[in-house]
């Protein structure tokens, strides 16, 4: 199954990269920009069934490694079922 993990800076955490990208978008003519946040996408391809146990393991891995809960939120999408 194909998994996409999205990691984004928490809403209340300063995002210097997002702010810089936002300024660049405005200088390129984007109007009405209210917010720009820069995160990352991690794509995984895993053999095996999508079970509650697997999701629990994936959540743990997201919290322990793929995101830092102090500054980031995550969510994921599982495709192929």
């Amino acid at each position: 199954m194909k998994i996409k993990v999205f990691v984004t800076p928490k809403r209340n955490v300063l995002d210097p990269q997002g702010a810089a990208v936002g300024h660049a978008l405005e200088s390129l003519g984007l109007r009405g920009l209210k917010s720009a946040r820069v995160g990352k996408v991690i794509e995984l391809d895993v053999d095996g069934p999508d079970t509650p146990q697997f999701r629990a393991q994936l959540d743990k891995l997201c919290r322990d490694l793929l995101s830092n809960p102090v500054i980031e939120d995550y969510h994921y999408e599982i495709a192929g079922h």
Partner: protein
Amino acid sequence: MNIAVLQFPGSNCDQDAFQLFASGLGLPTRYVWHKDTRLGEADLVVLPGGFAYGDYLRCGAIARFSPVMGAVREYARKGGLVLGICNGFQILCEAGLLPGALIRNSSLEYRCMTCELAVEDAGPAFNPGTLGARIRLPIGHGEGNFRIDEAGRAGLEANRQVILRYLDNPNGSLDGIAGVRSEAGNVFGMMPHPDRAFERFHPSRDGLSVARAVLAARFPDLIRKSA
């Protein structure tokens, strides 16, 4: 006295940290490779600066899962002294051994300069009385912008866990925080480099007193001797 300096793939201040303790303070110092699962006898464990594991994912995110970090966690839990400098500070935050996190500098620039720092009253060893109210240490980092949530921030202040603050904030850190200690007082982390401030040709020699103050958290005689 026995100082252990950890080496991760991508550490590049390991020799600086080694020399701070070995030549600066004249203490027996050795390296511990990241694949070692044991620290051996150590009175202080130092996590040096650099770019461990290329800083992939986030600074310190992968290093915290190095085999040696299990031993560091256990060592810290028993009250052992730990010092993280720059990337070492980032690793300790990722590992949950210190509160908060370090994100991209607000300027988005890598900052390499000597900083004036206010010494906070953070305990019997780490305070303006033993270190002086102001010290100067070099920094060199792109991700030194300290962040913590409101509850964490209140906890840091209430427990006097902030050890150093920038006078002229170079990276956007919350409240100018440059270094913190654990609540128990045995784990220290700082973005500035005491390991680049001990030789005559360095911009200051304040790194020596910082190294002594960290050691004095467990060996108070060190401060008395140097005072």
